[in-house]
């Protein structure tokens, strides 16, 4: 019985995490991208450039938001489950080891959407309320 209760609590936490991920921001890709969903863990690895190709073998082009952006804070806590400062330290490690450089940054939702619309391999995220223009579709985070 106790085990079932624990499992229910864990399930509730998992569902809550998923709701938060879906309510505070929207992950977006180019409309031509065949992907329709991605797991949180995969998304984190994509934005940390640990996964650099889509399942169709096309290279991933990641676009991030500025580190003062509220949506960046929500995305980082929800997807990476870290603070922005930790992610910045991760990128320092990658840069100075000569292994990778951080994703390109766009300052606003509109700029992210324009970048994704113009790049078939791009993935980014915008505020949940942002209107998605033609050429951009949401990617469900599981």
């Amino acid at each position, binding site marked *: 019985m106790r085990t079932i209760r624990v499992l229910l609590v864990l399930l509730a936490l998992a569902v809550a995490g998923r709701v938060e991920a879906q309510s505070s921001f929207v992950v977006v890709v180019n409309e031509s991208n065949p992907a329709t969903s991605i797991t949180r863990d995969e998304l984190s690895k994509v934005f940390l450039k640990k996964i650099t190709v889509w399942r169709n073998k096309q290279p991933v082009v990641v676009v991030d938001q500025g580190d003062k952006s509220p949506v960046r804070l929500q995305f980082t806590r929800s997807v990476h*489950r870290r603070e922005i400062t930790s992610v910045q330290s991760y990128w*320092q490690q990658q840069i*100075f*080891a000569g*292994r990778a450089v951080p994703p390109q940054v766009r300052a606003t939702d509109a700029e992210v959407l324009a970048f994704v619309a113009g790049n078939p391999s791009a993935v980014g995220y915008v505020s949940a309320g942002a209107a998605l223009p033609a050429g951009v579709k949401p990617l469900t985070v599981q």
Partner: protein
Amino acid sequence: MNTRSRVVSLSLGLALATFAAAPAAAQELTIDKLAVHGYGGWSFGRTTDNLNTNFFLFAHQRGDYFHNEFALNVTAQLSDQLSIVAQPFWHSGHHANQTASGMDYVFGEWKFSDMARLRLGNVKQPFGIYTEVFDVGTLRPFAALSQSVYGPSGMIGKSYSGVGLTGALFADGPLGIEYDVYAGGLETLEEDTPLQMLTQITDTVGRAALNAATTRTWRDVIGGRLILRTPLDGFSVGTSGYTGTRPVTRLGQARDWRRTVVGAHADYTSDAWSLRGEWARERDEANFTADGSYLEGAYRLTTRLQLAATWGTFDTEVENVPAANLAKGKSLLDHEETGFGVNYWFSPNFVVKTSYHLVTGNRFSHPDPTTRFRNLAYNGQLVNETNAVLVSVHLSF
């Protein structure tokens, strides 16, 4: 100006000229394909006892204010497969690492896939936790790395020159593996004057001249590193090793002796905690073995205020040294270090660090210059214990 300095100056000049003269099309290349980063810092160190003549790192009894460094990291992503990475550095200081400039690394990388990236050129040596970011102060809790593994014992090099293969396996799963294999040449900084002194500390005549800290060149090096990323976010374990030959005089023979270094590490980082431990052993065929290990922990009380502690030890075993020499100069072989620090992080890119270190042994903490060190050692007047306070500022962008 030496050859290295000329190469660095020429490279920087070309880079600046490119920025200055870039037409509109090249500006697009700059924004999307070229990334420029850098790091640097200033450090002050003082040993607290005026009777204590030992140096430790950049600290000495009168205090040294003149220890500065800066490095520029340039990455050009020329295509999905090809990237070029270079990192020139400048360093000034009064002790140990004197004023210098040069290349940390410059290499080209061809990416076949995430599982296989070919690296050609002069590449940061992948060994343990910190070797690839040896000088980057914003990536560690203390002003300097633990001397127990990263000290000038020749255990780790800065970069290898040759060919390497790196990649990640099972990157989309809960368990990930990162690997490196490489072959070529390697340079290590070795300060083995304490060992030279030990061999002749009981002699009364015929003492040979001492060679101070020197960069040694390794040949025919092969090495690798394996890191296992665990399902516990931020926790990884790894093992590293390399072997090669290097020209030293041992057992009365001046020739290329083979030396092998192996190590293991564990690393856990979260938003608040960083806990790290490493062990490494170097052994060469001239009956020389050294073991180094350390533990390092840091905790952020707030996003800005961090407490840190470290403990490390380094033990050297040299066979064929008379017991009388060991009795008189045992401290020349050993190093034990305990440190506590308080850091204030203005941001992940800018930090002020203060720390206190208690060092026992004279392997990495001893008088300078070498003549003074030699005289005190031969007269049995070395001070075995060193108290040092370090203050440093580190930045990166």
